[in-house]
């Protein structure tokens, strides 16, 4: 049976299996990070932020663009964070503020609009051609280390990416779980009017979440940019967050992390061991299949809040 054979392959060459899992883990943790950006905005405004993907590109382009313009990498980094803050502030001021209490679909459309604006604006300023991420200048390692007589190869950049992503996730999870902003955020997501009536400022919350999402976008952009290059095609990977969110639940931070890892590792194993059997390149759609499968059993995702609807 060709579908059983891969299991023997896994046991037969455990080091190779480990390598595949590692690759999956690295991809997965970056998926988690992207998904986290979505969860944050979804929690605070009940809206799937279509622009998250382009924010990744925009942040990375700003960083590289500033460096190309002669700014040193360690000035460009805070400057980019500042740009993300200005972006968050403008989105709140120009888009969201006038849409308080509108149906979610209106806000969703607004984020699609924002996507096209950012694509146009990004191309206008930085041009459309792909750029190299300034990995070395940011002092990120680019060697690789090997184990088991060169059988297991770990890229140092992948290790760095995992550590940075993991740290950011832990920090953000704490931030949301333990602070009053965390409760305020959930309150805003549930009911705008009620949140206002207990003295939560919608405007502040929105700036905060969009800014954090912007910073997450920047981290993702740097890490992903270092693995490939920085171009508008990068925004496609953000769509991979969709199955992650379906799997983990749109409102759950834990869900984003676990979902990201399941999807990342799952698709790498699927591609490597089963891909060849069915003609290859199943990496592109396997994630969606896994998500679909989960939908049958837990429509609210692994950790999502149960949707309570009284009739």
């Amino acid at each position, binding site marked *: 049976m060709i579908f059983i054979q891969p299991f023997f392959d896994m046991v037969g060459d455990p080091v190779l299996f480990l390598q595949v899992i590692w690759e999956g883990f690295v991809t997965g943790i970056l998926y988690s990070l992207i998904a986290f950006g979505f969860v944050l905005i979804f929690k605070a405004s009940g809206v799937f932020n279509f622009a998250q993907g382009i924010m990744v590109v925009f942040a990375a382009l700003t960083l590289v663009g500033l460096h190309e313009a002669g700014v040193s990498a360690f000035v460009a980094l805070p400057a980019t964070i500042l740009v993300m803050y200005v972006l968050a502030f403008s989105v709140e001021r120009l888009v969201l503020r006038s849409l308080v209490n509108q149906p979610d679909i209106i806000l969703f459309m607004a984020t699609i609009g924002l996507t096209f604006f950012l694509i146009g604006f990004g191309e206008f300023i930085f041009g459309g051609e792909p750029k190299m991420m300034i990995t070395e200048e940011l002092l990120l390692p680019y060697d690789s280390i090997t184990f088991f007589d060169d059988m297991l190869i770990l890229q140092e950049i992948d290790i760095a990416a995992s550590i940075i992503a993991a740290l950011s996730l832990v920090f953000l999870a*704490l*931030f949301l779980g*333990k602070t009053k902003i965390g*409760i305020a955020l*959930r309150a805003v997501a549930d009911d705008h009017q009620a949140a206002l*009536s207990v*003295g939560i400022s919608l405007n502040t919350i929105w700036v905060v979440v969009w800014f954090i999402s912007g910073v997450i976008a920047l981290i993702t952009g740097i890490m992903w940019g270092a693995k490939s290059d920085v171009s508008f095609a990068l925004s496609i990977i953000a769509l991979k967050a969709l199955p992650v969110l379906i799997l983990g639940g749109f409102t759950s931070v834990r869900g984003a992390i676990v979902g990201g890892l399941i999807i990342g590792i799952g698709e790498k194993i699927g591609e490597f061991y089963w891909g060849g059997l069915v003609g290859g390149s199943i990496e592109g759609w396997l994630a969606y299949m896994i998500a679909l499968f989960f939908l049958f059993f837990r429509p609210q995702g692994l950790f999502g809040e149960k949707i*309570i*609807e009284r009739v």
Partner: protein
Amino acid sequence: MERKIGETLLGVEHISLSFGGVKALTDISFNIREKEVFAIIGPNGAGKTSMLNVINGFYHPQQGEIHFKGLHRKQMRPHEAAVQGIARTFQNVALFKGMSTLNNIMAGRNLKMKTNLFWQALYYGPARTEEMINREYVEDIIDFLEIQAIRRTPVGKLPYGLQKRVELGRALAMDPELLLLDEPMAGMNIEEKQDMCRFIIDINEQYGTTIVLIEHDMGVVMDLSERLIVLDYGRKIAEGTPDEIRGNQVVIDAYLGVAHTN
């Protein structure tokens, strides 16, 4: 009873509010005094809820002024109203449905928690002390409203009467000076209404909170309130004590309609 009706807490002066060509409120003025229970009544669509929305900043009137605790203002945003000490409940319960009773009421303490994000994220030092103090306050409210049994239940699952009670708890958690209640007893059975009446009286007496009440149940209104105004088609048609209102011909006409004789 130590409660004393004091100075004017909230003054509403010549408020007019319109949406396009529709006049929701026309030239409304009244005063609410400290520690009193004040009711706004009127037929459906008279502008009662609009009036509350003006007071807590959801609507910005085209004309008129409001002064609260001696501060004049033309308009104010809702969270600023909350900062100044105005809390409210909603006609069609507005709770954070996915969160537990406890967290809903904790959300009401939002403004009272002041430690910075750094400590909060670590949940250590001042943040911890602060959380405990606020948690204690919330527990008192839970005891007071007799909702210990549902503290961990997501409020979306609760029956309507209890949801209204949780909403009241959230407003109370803000330790407000002025509490706006928009039809707190709508859709309740007699027993639930009696409970709610008891809570409103106790809040007024124990916490000394000034209460503005919109209610359709005339028995409740006449029992609870010291003074009331009557709105009809966005105008104030009467103001006075329950006894004065009961005998007021204009009010009776507004509610029952007038026979037109040609």
